[in-house]
């Protein structure tokens, strides 16, 4: 069966510090991968998605970037965090076309 791992579960970082959140998928190959942000009490905002190694599509301009160095690895990064980057970040994967997305457990990011 397929599983998705996302870490860390919780992260507290100072303003201006770098960020690296990692997501890996097991049990499948060549998945579509996604990063979402969920602000408190709100829905999900798609940040990035990837259909293959090295292929990243950005949905909104922001302080974050994403990379996919391996087929089943998706990394969310920032060089300098802002207060507005606080939130709950979810990684998700799906098989190819017309399949639902499956989510990781999320990372709660607090910026101080």
């Amino acid at each position: 069966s397929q599983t998705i791992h996302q870490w860390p579960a919780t992260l507290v970082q100072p303003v201006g510090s770098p960020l690296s959140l990692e997501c890996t998928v097991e049990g499948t190959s060549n998945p579509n991968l996604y990063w979402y942000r969920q602000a408190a009490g709100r829905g999900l905002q798609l940040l990035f998605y990837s259909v293959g190694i090295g292929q990243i599509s950005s949905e909104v301009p922001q302080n974050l970037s994403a990379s996919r160095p391996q087929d089943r690895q998706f990394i969310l990064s920032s060089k300098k965090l802002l207060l507005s980057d606080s939130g709950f970040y979810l990684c998700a994967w799906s098989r190819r076309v017309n399949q639902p997305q499956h989510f990781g457990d999320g990372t709660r990011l607090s910026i101080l």
Partner: protein
Amino acid sequence: AQTVTQSQPEMSVQEAETVTLSCTYDTSESNYYLFWYKQPPSRQMILVIRQEAYKQQNATENRFSVNFQKAAKSFSLKISDSQLGDTAMYFCAFMKRHNFNKFYFGSGTKLNVKP
């Protein structure tokens, strides 16, 4: 552009009763998928049910069923025999067919099941 609207920010229901969560969407597409996801306090996103727009029959999954009205662009979720474990945020999501599975989510409805 696709938009998904959930007009009920919060709802409550007594245990064992039935509740319906509403969702409307706006699209010019004819082929698409609709989903309901559940996010309990643990924050995991769990797929509850899916509906393919080209199917007229409403999807059901145990106590969960949908009322899909394509012409009205409405996709409501009915939860029968509500259980305490159903307490969660519920998100409606839209996906265009053949579009890299890009989802458009509603803002969510917080459901409280009371004992």
